[in-house]
């Protein structure tokens, strides 16, 4: 079907026309975001930039404590990327290569936690952390990180389950402990999954973790995701009028790390997501 279709010229032209039109459609909003970030403050939106006011970026960094919020983002992201990437591998290995009573039930339980709307547990969790005196600290992210993430555990499990038993049997005969087998044999070969999991965790933590900080932290500890939205760039004394151009500049800088990380890890992400979805 595929090849036969592509041999016909009109069909080919239609396909490429559609591809280009759709590409434009998908990229246009981002183009306008960048354009808007370079417009003079207060200027109207235009199709093409009417000037290159890079000063907006300086405003974006100085009108609010941008670096302070970025630092908070970095702390939260580090906790949410580094720790769960390692612990998820650990747990995923357990589910993939070790046997114990109740394993299937536990695995299903783990998968079903993905369905749970986070907000249902968030408020009681707040109460618990409040009682422990850990509200308005970054410790909660450390503890959440220790548990890994269900989706990452699933990805690792799928990956580790695909190897023959011989791999660890030989090592076991040589006297390797299970931990050594995991650490020295399985972890090094799982780098593509490590990359996938890290990218997903990075996107989640840097970009989409905004409600939890809103609840658990005070203004000055907000990460960018929360601050850019709830503090924002307003004209002094007129808190209802946003300086859209400066805000756009702030957003461009906020989104940039996500895009850079995506391009670096794209290859792994494609493989990783695909492997999990198709095998699962």
């Amino acid at each position, binding site marked *: *079907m*595929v*090849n036969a*279709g*592509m041999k016909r010229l009109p069909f080919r032209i239609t396909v490429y026309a559609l*591809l280009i039109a*759709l*590409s434009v459609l*998908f990229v246009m*909003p*981002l183009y306008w975001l960048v354009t808007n970030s370079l417009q003079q403050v207060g200027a*109207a*939106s235009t*199709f093409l930039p009417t000037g290159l006011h890079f000063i907006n970026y300086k405003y974006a960094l100085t009108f609010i404590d941008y670096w302070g919020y970025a630092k908070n983002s970095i702390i939260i992201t580090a906790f949410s990327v580094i720790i769960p990437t390692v612990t998820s591998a*650990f*747990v995923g290995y*357990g*589910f993939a290569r*070790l046997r*114990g*009573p109740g394993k299937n039930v*536990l695995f299903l339980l*783990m998968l079903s*936690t993905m*369905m749970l*709307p986070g*907000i*249902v*547990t968030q*408020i*009681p969790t707040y109460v*618990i952390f409040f009682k422990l005196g850990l509200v308005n600290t970054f410790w909660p992210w450390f*503890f959440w990180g*220790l*548990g890994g993430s269900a989706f990452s*555990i699933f990805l690792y499990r799928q990956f580790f389950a*695909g190897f023959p038993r011989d791999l660890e049997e030989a090592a076991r005969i040589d006297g390797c402990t*299970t931990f050594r087998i*995991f650490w020295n044999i399985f972890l090094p070969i799982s780098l593509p999954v490590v990359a996938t999991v890290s990218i997903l965790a990075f*996107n989640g933590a*840097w*970009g989409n973790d905004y*409600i939890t900080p*809103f609840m658990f932290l005070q203004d000055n500890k907000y990460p960018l*995701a929360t601050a*850019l*939205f*709830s503090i924002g760039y*307003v004209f002094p004394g007129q808190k209802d009028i946003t300086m*859209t151009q400066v805000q*756009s500049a702030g*957003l461009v800088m906020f*989104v940039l790390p*996500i*895009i850079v990380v*995506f391009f670096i890890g794209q290859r792994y992400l*494609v493989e990783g997501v*695909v492997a999990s*979805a*198709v095998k699962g």
Partner: protein
Amino acid sequence: MNRQVVHGTDAAFHSKRSRFRGRSFKEAIEFYLFISPWFIVFIVLGLIPLLYGLYLSFTNYAGFNMDRLVFVGLDNYRKVFTDNDAMYSLGRTLFFTVIMVPSTIILGFLLAVLLNQNIKRIGIYRTLFFIPSIIPVVAVGTMWRSLFVDDGIVNKMLEALGLEAVDWLGYDYAIYPLIIMLLWGVGGGILIYLAGLKGVSKDLYEAAAIDGATTIQRFVKITIPLVTPVLFFQFIMSIISSLQIFVQPILLAANSNSLLSTPLRPNYVYSVHAFQQIFAYGRFGYGLALLWVLFVMILILTIVVFTTSRFWVFYEVDQEGK
């Protein structure tokens, strides 16, 4: 003699079995050890808060009265179903779910079919289609809002085409920016769809072509049935995420400058209502009841979809036995 042999075998059998037991006992311990980080955190920061929240949803918890909680039985739950705003917002959430689930699946799938047409440099198009789905929602919402404001680029385009500008963020049109914004991220599923499409054996198409099937027949009779497992996966995922839709309407709200901004009525969805009850009005117990109702609805819907899946999801018998 005979007896001895039997006895010997028996002994060997026993020692082998106990060795096996020893190994499998040790392995079980190791298994629990390995999954313990997840399990402990799941209990402490998952299950306990979940049940604690369930308990609080039966109380008059208001955020400060922890030491004199009053158990109110099913009052909060009864209120959910008599609260006009809750029912109205549930209706809005269902409305967006009914629109978004089919359209994201159909459009996402069609994008993947398009990309599957033996295209040169497919990677570029795939990336461009996919990128919107990785942009953080906070940025997406703020960006679209600035495109839809009165003197924003969307109205500029309409004017350039000789049409009248529209009050996109106002009452009459508010649902369109929201739907457009959500559809912008439709490319998020293409990686999975493409994998599903690549998995369809070429032999099937060739065989069908020999039998004289048209392109459309082949698409309907071969492609679609064989990718139903992938469509099913996306169906579940998009139902779950659509029912939880929360921040996008807030970001498009007229006075949007915090998570507590309220969207206009057409975009006033259920999660926003729950969030408002908790954080704007301090009705924690009631808000938790609202959230539990949503959670149970999601659970029931997922189970229903799962049980019906055997009637429409095609599972290929895996010949490699993996």
